[in-house]
């Protein structure tokens, strides 16, 4: 397959955008699992909530003939940044409710409960077509600042936008985790009983961590919605919505935000590039099956890292807290 330089660049740019969005989700997971020890396996739920909230806030309600084809409960036609804010707030509020219900569960059960909740959210969106057009999903979502650059260069601009969000979130989490608050979270991860013996309300700190991480995930979801400009419930199935992000964080290094970013880029690179490489080597007639080699590659890499480098590629960073 011949590809022009422009084509390669375009591919790299959209690769970097997706990888950065995943990095944001992985940082959100790092807040939950890496720093507080919360086993959130319902990332997809917050991912979906963020994407759908921002979509409903920023897109206009369909009118005329479109209204017959696209049903959505609301369509506020508000600016992108309000969409992002709404995504963060809705994810955070729902996380608060979920947390109040489930955070007393022991860790493993929390994992299973959150998988179930995320799937229930997805199935709800899928079935209740009045809300956001059911399985067909929403298309033609607004792309921020789309009128200031030519259409074919839009992704370059969007990469800048996503990078800004990634940077801000990265530093916000780094600061938060080095603050006294973050120190309590890490203490909870290490020894919950000690922390509660210190007179701290462990449940409340866990709830805050769940909400904070979920807000980050919600923002990631919103950024995804405006990048792909189309969302369907199918995107938020456990594989791509949750498990792949766990793989990214585990590979990069749990408890390490740089690791979360590196892990996201590596896994997403394996996922999106392997098809190209594989097309060159597979025998004719097998082209349609070749892409699935990436399942094998990522699976093997994940197993290998877990057994040989249980702390991930980077391992956990040492944290010095400010007092």
């Amino acid at each position, binding site marked *: 397959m011949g590809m022009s330089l422009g084509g390669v660049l375009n591919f790299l740019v959209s690769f970097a955008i997706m990888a950065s969005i995943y990095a944001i989700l992985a940082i959100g997971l790092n807040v939950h699992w890496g720093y507080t020890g919360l*086993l959130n396996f319902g990332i997809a739920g917050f991912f979906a909530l963020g994407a759908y909230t921002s979509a409903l806030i920023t897109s206009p309600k369909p009118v005329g003939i479109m209204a017959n084809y696209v049903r959505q409960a609301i369509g506020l036609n508000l600016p992108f940044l309000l969409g992002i804010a709404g995504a963060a707030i809705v994810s955070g509020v729902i996380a608060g409710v979920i947390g109040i*219900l*489930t955070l007393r*569960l*022991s*860790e*493993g*059960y929390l*994992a*299973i*409960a959150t*998988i*179930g*909740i995320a*799937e*229930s959210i997805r*199935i*709800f969106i*899928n*079935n209740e077509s009045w809300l956001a057009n059911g399985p067909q999903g929403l298309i033609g979502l607004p792309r921020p600042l789309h009128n200031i650059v030519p259409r074919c260069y839009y992704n370059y601009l969007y990469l800048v936008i996503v990078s800004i969000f990634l940077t801000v979130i990265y530093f916000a989490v780094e600061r938060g985790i080095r603050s006294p608050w973050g120190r309590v979270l890490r203490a909870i991860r290490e020894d919950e009983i000690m922390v509660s013996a210190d007179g701290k309300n462990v449940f409340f700190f866990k709830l805050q961590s769940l909400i904070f991480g979920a807000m980050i995930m919600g923002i990631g979801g919103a950024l995804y919605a405006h990048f792909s400009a189309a969302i369907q419930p199918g995107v938020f199935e*456990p*594989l791509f919505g949750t*498990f792949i992000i*766990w*793989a990214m964080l*585990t590979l990069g290094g749990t408890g390490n935000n740089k690791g979360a970013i590196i892990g996201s880029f590596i896994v997403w690179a394996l996922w999106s590039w392997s098809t190209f490489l594989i097309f060159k080597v597979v025998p004719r007639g*097998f082209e*349609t*099956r*070749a892409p*699935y*080699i*990436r*399942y*094998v*590659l*990522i*699976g*093997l*890499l*994940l*197993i290998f890292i*877990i*057994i040989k480098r*249980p702390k991930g590629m980077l391992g956990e960073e040492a944290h010095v807290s400010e007092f």
Partner: protein
Amino acid sequence: MAELIVYGIILGSIIALGSIGLTLIWGITDLFNCAHGDQITVGAYTAFVFTSLFSNMGILQGKVGPFSFCWGVLLAFIPAVIISVVLALIIDRWVYKPLRHSGAHFITSFIASIGVAWVLRGFIYIIWGADFHFYSSGLRTVAFLPLGIKLRIDEIFIVVIAWMAVALVYLFLAKTKKGKALRALADNPGLARISGIDTEYMIKWAWGIAGTLIAIAGILYGIETQLRPEMGWIFLLPLFAAIILGGKGSITGALIGGLLLGIAQQVSTAWLLPTYKPAIAFIIMIAVLIFRPKGIFGRRHI
């Protein structure tokens, strides 16, 4: 309604069969095995390979009684079980055992099992492609039962085999020395070691049982629907719900949990869209987790 309950029992029997191996491994090794679903898929496809092989050799082509499948499918149970067990033992040896011995957090082995699931699914796609497959193209005879219940004859076979398998596992665990040792190991691994029970050896037995049930569940599931690469993965979440309902390591719990979920899912279609079926399973599971975290029955005997 009677019809929905009968359908629920059929679905529940398959869920129960699928979940017993899962809860057994969970109880004994602390592994919540995410690859269980894809191992089920492998079981189904292995049987498919042998069925095709028999049909290419032109043997065992006769239909089994009133059922839609031929004798080849029945015979294929044997190699499918063997391969499923061997696969389970290989995976345990190379993935979970090293993790057990390094004292890894149970979540680490859970994530490793996600990796295993992807590897298996990747191979299934590569070898068999994304298309659907069927064990046989035979007509599926329907039986008319009282109360206006329509049933595919195959489903009777499925329920009978599922319950026979479950009963055998139950008897094994309740009556044999190895079965009791497995339960002892799940109950108190430290004391089991002190009593001279070789943990690693018993874990091999547990995988042997799980692998057998996995293959059987895969084939029955394949007879009920059709073979596709995602079949086991999609099936996995209801299995998780069933074993949570039943309580860690409990065979009878998983059995009752599976039946309950199957019936609840089918009966719910009287009021809700069928696409809500999986959500019903999760909502029951979450409610049980919140109100009865040890499962609905608490700790059970087996």
